[in-house]
């Protein structure tokens, strides 16, 4: 360890020591605290993106409305989409990677704790950069897909697109750094006996998503660099008069964009694959097939991008190929759904809030999946594209899917992270309000879309047959908002005086439930030895017991006995906190911001980043 630091340690700032207080959160490298930071930050962005959605719905509630002007409307739908994808669903998923993965594989931390902190701080500063446009009255307005040449300076001279492009470049760095870290963590830090086919499905999906990220984000990085070069250095990548091709942007964006869809949904699928077995008291049906389906979805996701471009005139052969590959995605996805249903079948089902959220995921995702198959067919897509039918589809998979799945994760792992339970009654209120509000909002959009209502228009004429369902959708959006308020109240109450959770409130199956809630900094006093799939369930009930009812009384009593994490472990050395991740992250973001605010800022950012990196490399392992 730390051989560069051997002899006289090269140290600029003393290594921070605080374990409590404000600074301890800024400098922490503990995966659990970073997970909490990710979760809280993503939730704040969720509220911002939610307010943006409510404003959009208010504007569309009645025809000929002038609550918002068209320019502000463009900014709102652009920032709503960009925020929900890059600042909510992705980081909320990463929050669970951080919270659950090291615990599930029996590790004490991730492979690179400081790199983990760096990912978080780049995410925060990048998210702020992306949102700075609001303060300057020039938020991004080119849609989350930022089609060039519409986003070129000639058509979009303000700094909005620069905030968008540079913010996403910075955020991409955070995602990739996190993905590298989790790939190495999962491949390298598994406890003895934790073979690949014994890994919990959530850990599997984290691995798959991390590979998707490291192979998808370089492509959007190149596209964004080309756009930024066009806007700032006068290059011709997407300048039509110089021969630049608008389709190049679309190809690059969607080669990233479609894997990105699975980057958003696979973590939620992983959560659901954890929650359903626990609350059905049965092992996951067809574990291996669920894992392989996740991998298959990831592979196929790189071969479907042009289904976003059916109306660009790619020709019948290209269209036919992408129709076929797109429909092929339905196969592994359908396999997963059948396995989830079969997991429930014959189980002794406990309808706690995490399970309700997971069931919400499965049912809503089926609807979204089916509408997805309808616009996999090119002629059908030509009718549906750019209408509210598509808006309905992707909200059924990304809200009905990802958000329900992630809320299942919040309710499921909340006791592990806080040591306290969330209130079940309030949880059920949250679930039912959200389910009803969600369907009120988005189901009518199917009919609006098929009736020809176009996306991205800031208002519509009366008497088109769209008035009633638009009002219903707006009411539904506020029902969703109410459900989120119920959740926030529940969370606040739980933190103050929630019932104590104990180590294993759900009678869990995976290793995170073997240790105290919240876990000690070192997680496991003794690194566990894994004897099979559902490692903690095996410890508790032995190999013969598939369900609790079958567990012999003698072994069932072991559930009160805890072989891991009870003994005090004073000699376990965890890495110290560090200032350098936050310094390096700030440097990177200032460097990017310099494209908008002036090169002097890029210079400062570059110096700060270099200082952070060098001090990081020569930082002794402990002060």
């Amino acid at each position, binding site marked *: *360890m*730390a*051989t*560069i*630091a*051997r*002899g006289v340690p090269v140290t600029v700032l003393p290594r921070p020591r605080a374990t409590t207080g404000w600074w301890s959160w800024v400098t922490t490298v503990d995966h659990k605290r970073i997970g909490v930071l990710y979760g809280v930050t993503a939730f704040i962005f969720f509220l911002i993106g939610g307010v943006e959605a409510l404003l959009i719905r208010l504007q569309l509630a009645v025809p000929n409305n002038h609550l918002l002007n068209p320019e502000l409307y463009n900014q709102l739908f652009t920032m709503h989409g960009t925020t929900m994808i890059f600042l909510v669903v992705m980081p909320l998923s990463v929050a669970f990677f951080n919270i659950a993965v090291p615990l599930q594989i029996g*590790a*004490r*931390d991730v*492979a*690179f*704790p*400081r*790199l983990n902190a760096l990912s978080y701080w780049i995410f925060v500063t990048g998210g702020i950069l992306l949102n700075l446009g609001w303060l300057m009255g020039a938020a991004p307005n080119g849609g989350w897909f930022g089609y060039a040449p519409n986003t070129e300076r000639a058509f979009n001279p303000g700094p909005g697109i620069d905030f968008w492009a540079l913010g996403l470049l910075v955020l991409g760095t955070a995602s*990739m750094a996190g993905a*590298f*870290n989790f*790939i*190495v963590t999962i*491949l*390298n*830090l*598994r406890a003895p006996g*934790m073979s690949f086919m014994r890994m919990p499905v959530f850990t599997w999906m984290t691995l798959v998503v991390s590979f998707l990220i*490291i*192979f*998808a*984000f*370089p*492509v959007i*990085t*190149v*596209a964004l*660099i*080309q756009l930024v*070069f066009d806007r700032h*250095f*006068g*290059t*011709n*990548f997407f300048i039509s*008069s*110089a*021969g*630049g*091709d608008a389709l*190049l942007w679309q190809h*690059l964006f969607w080669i990233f964009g479609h894997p990105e869809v699975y980057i958003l949904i696979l973590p939620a699928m992983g959560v659901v694959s954890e929650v359903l077995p626990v609350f059905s008291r049965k092992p996951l049906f067809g574990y291996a097939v669920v894992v392989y389906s996740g991998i298959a979805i990831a592979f196929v996701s790189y071969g479907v991008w042009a289904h976003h471009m059916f109306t660009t005139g790619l020709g019948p052969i290209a269209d036919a190929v992408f129709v076929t590959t797109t429909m092929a995605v339905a196969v592994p996805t359908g396999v997963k759904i059948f396995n989830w249903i079969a997991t429930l079948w014959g189980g002794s089902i406990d309808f706690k809030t995490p399970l309700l959220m997971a069931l919400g995921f499965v049912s809503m995702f089926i609807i979204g999946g089916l509408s997805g198959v309808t616009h996999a067919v090119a002629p059908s897509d030509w009718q549906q594209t750019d209408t509210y039918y598509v808006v309905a589809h992707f909200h059924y998979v990304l809200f009905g899917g990802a958000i329900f799945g992630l809320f299942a994760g919040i309710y499921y792992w909340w006791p592990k992270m806080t040591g306290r339970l969330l209130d079940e009654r309030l949880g059920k209120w949250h679930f039912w309000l959200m389910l009803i509000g969600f369907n009120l909002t988005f189901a009518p959009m199917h009919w609006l879309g098929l009736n020809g209502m176009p996306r991205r228009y800031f208002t519509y004429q009366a008497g088109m047959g769209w008035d009633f369902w638009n009002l219903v959708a707006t009411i539904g959006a506020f029902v969703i908002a109410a459900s989120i308020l119920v959740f926030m109240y529940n969370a606040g109450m739980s933190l103050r005086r929630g019932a104590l959770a104990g180590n294993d409130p759900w009678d869990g199956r995976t290793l995170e439930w073997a240790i105290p809630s919240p876990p000690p900094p070192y997680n496991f006093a003794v*690194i566990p030895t894994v004897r099979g799939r559902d490692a903690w369930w095996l410890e508790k009930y032995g190999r013969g017991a598939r369900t609790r009812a079958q567990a012999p009384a003698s072994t069932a009593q072991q559930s009160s006995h805890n072989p891991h994490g009870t003994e005090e472990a004073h000699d376990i*050395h*965890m*890495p110290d906190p560090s200032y350098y991740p936050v310094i390096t992250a700030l440097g990177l973001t200032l460097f990017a911001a310099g494209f908008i605010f002036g090169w002097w800022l890029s210079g400062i950012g570059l110096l700060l980043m270099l200082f952070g*990196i*060098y001090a*990081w*490399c020569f*930082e002794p*392992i402990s002060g």
Partner: protein
Amino acid sequence: MEHALAPGHGAVAAHPTSTGLDHRKLLMWTFLGSDCLFFGSLIMTYMIYRGKSVTGPHPHEIFNIPYTSVSAFVLLMSSLTMVLALAAIQRGDQRGLRVWLLATALLGSVFVGGQYFEFTTFVQHGLTPQVNLFGTTFYTLTGFHGAHVTVGIIILLSLFLTSLLGRLPPSESLTVEIAGLYWHFVDVVWIVIFTLVYLLP
């Protein structure tokens, strides 16, 4: 690239890895896999826009193949010296390590310097990044490759200085090996770029 310089930092102590591969080595391999997609996208952009410029100068009017072949050869030779640097630290030869690290950085610098000279000449012949699609895609692709080489030179010089300070003992040969992985990757990418951009008629 900072991790190539940070032996064991960040890794949780005394935890043997499941694959038997060092964390940092695995990190570098995954990074290089990802970087393939980065260069892949830049190269594809260049190939798609090949011959699509609406005005000159065009590649055949600009390129000086013998000149660039020499600088490509220099870069390839730096892979040889990189291997020699790793062999030196593995047999505990600190002097050899420093000589070959410096030689690798020097060859890399000759390549980057050659690229700077080439760019300057091209600009004098009217090829700027703004003038046409060829200029746009050529400078972006080769510029990002040059930036990668520059980062590699900074890593090599940092390792050289670390060795001078006596902080790079033979037990840390892995750090040199990982820096070498990056260096060889950047060389291989140049072979692809050189073939597709300069040699393809």
